[in-house]
């Protein structure tokens, strides 16, 4: 009697554990919740209240052209979607900058001393990198997961997600993303144009932990239309020290050029 009681309890326990696992794990793996992976990616790279500063070196190579090296200093305050990027070299472009204020991205040219509207979709100078690549990631807001599978990239288990843009404020309307399972960080992305053609392939080669967040320190972007055209972005000197409010103003961008 005691045995059958225990057996019933064990059966019930197994049933409940199975039920709980089903409730927790199955939805997590269902297509509807693959969107959570995008949210996780965003969360792992979003500094929230902390300000973030770094230097990016962007090296672009095009067939028949000289290699171009661009160095930018970047300031981010993700909680207010504030973003400032100032070109520090080459000398001829020094002082040009991009400033995100509310929904507007401004480009400042110290030569003309004028601010012009720019867009996150535009290339950073002559490279294959877009402004959007260096800004805070909002993949969950911008893309829907339309299909998914699990796979291996190298020897790393990954989720392979096909994404479709929810809006036209992103440079690529379609994307295929290879995401490391833990932590959920993008390892590779194939970016498709509106015509459905593969335009760019990006590899996230290294990550560094800055505070509690992860950021790619080296990204290789290969132009899939023009053989031999590629851009490499390298991040150095990341820091999460607090920045004065005036950094994210037009006045500051003008002042640093004086």
């Amino acid at each position: 009697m005691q045995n059958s009681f225990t057996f019933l309890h064990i059966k019930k326990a197994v049933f409940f554990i199975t039920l709980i696992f089903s409730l927790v794990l199955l939805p997590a793996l269902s297509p509807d919740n693959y969107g959570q992976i995008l949210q996780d990616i965003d969360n792992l790279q979003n500094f929230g209240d902390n300000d973030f500063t770094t230097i990016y070196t962007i090296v672009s190579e095009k067939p028949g052209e000289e290699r171009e090296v661009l160095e930018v200093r970047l300031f981010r305050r993700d909680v207010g979607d504030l973003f400032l990027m100032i070109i520090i070299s080459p000398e001829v472009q020094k002082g040009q900058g991009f400033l995100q204020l509310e929904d507007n991205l401004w480009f400042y040219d110290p030569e003309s001393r004028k601010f012009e509207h720019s867009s996150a979709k535009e290339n950073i100078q002559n490279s294959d990198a877009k402004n959007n690549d260096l800004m805070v990631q909002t993949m969950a807001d911008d893309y829907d997961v339309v299909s998914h599978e699990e796979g291996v990239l190298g020897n790393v288990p990954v989720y392979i997600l096909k994404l479709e843009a929810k809006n036209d404020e992103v440079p690529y309307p379609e994307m295929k993303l290879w995401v490391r399972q833990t932590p959920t960080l993008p390892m590779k992305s194939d970016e498709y144009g509106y015509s459905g053609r593969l335009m760019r392939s990006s590899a996230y080669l290294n990550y560094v932990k800055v505070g509690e967040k992860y950021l790619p320190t080296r990204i290789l972007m290969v132009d899939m239309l023009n053989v031999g055209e590629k851009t490499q972005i390298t991040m150095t000197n990341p820091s999460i020290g607090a920045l004065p409010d005036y950094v994210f103003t037009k006045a500051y961008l003008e002042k640093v050029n004086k």
Partner: protein
Amino acid sequence: MKLVKLALRNLLRQKRRSILLGSAIAFGILFITLINSFTGSFIENVGENFSHLMAGHIFIDGVEKSPSGKDLYLIRDDKLIMEAIESSGIEYEFLTKRSEIRGTILFEGNGINQSIIGADWEKESYFKDRIILEDGSFDNLSDPRGIIVSSKIADRLNVQLGDHVIVKMQTYTGQQTAGDFTIAAVSIDTGLFGSISCYANIEYVNELLNIDSDKYLTLGIYLPDLIDTDMATNLLLPELQDRMSLFSRETNEDENPFMAILEQQETEEWIGVKYRLTTINDVLSEVEEIVRILNIAGLIIMLVLFAIIMVGITNTFRMVMFERIQEIGTMRAVGMHRSEVRALFLFEAFFLALGGIIAGYILSGITMFIISQVYWGVDTPLFMLLKNGYMTFKLAPLQVLLNFVIVTILTLLAAFRPADKAAKLEPGLALSTEK
């Protein structure tokens, strides 16, 4: 009258010297007249060539703001614009509807940034005459993905007829995309404005831009004559203002309406579509500046040239005074006044200038006639400055008068000191001077 006759006789006495001095003046006049005449037709020719390339004299665009504040150009519905054009009563030859891609044409590792104009070539058949093809034909544009590139681009990309090229570009809203084109024809490069020399079918261009086939980016109004542009703009502007939200063309003194509109686009916020009207003259105001600079440079060169000629004239007249010192003494001794001696010299200088100027203008006329008969072709970098391949000249009568006055005054000034010195000679001293 006696002095005039004497002055003319004196000039004829030393024919060789007079011809040499007159030739120097004529050369100066020839130089400045050619510059003035060339710049006189410069604006007209550039304007006409520009209007052919841009397919219109007046242009209307619709501008919308993207959520991120970027300007997006699109005419979704042109019904109100067409109504305004009809109500304004302006006479036009053609209306052109065009879309434009700005992207990178890629072929086998070569890339070139280029604008590609999409047009309906069936409706815009008249513009086919303005694009001179070196290879291929407009019939090849029956391929919906056909593209006409300039010879310069074809050389740089190393493409030939039938080659397939990829164009890396952005959609109307700025998203990345790519198009496939086939080289349908190669046009003769127009030199100065080669960056707007690729043409394709509007339907495919719209497809790549992700806009419907009945929409487009710019409406061009092609008028019978460039000179009608301002009048037609003044008639059309209020009609458009009555029907739609329009950027103001009001400007500060030294501002161009086009720049003023761009300024408004940057600073203003609006919802929906706001239209802008620009004209060929907005673009030409920059060309006018070039003409102004050319004319000033021409005037400075003329002044330098005449400074040198003036030294020659002064020296010659001093020599003349020394040669005629006894003659001056005799004239003074028989009762000629000092002022008459001075006037005699100045009359000589005036006739010298007059002869030189007339000869200069005749030479200019002959030179301009000969140059204007030379066919420079349409594949020359000078193409934009020519009229159908020929150089044209236009000289304003006021400019002729101004040059005449300047050269005459300069010659008189050059001769004044020797003339004054001759006038002040004592008759006795002059008669006793040995040469």
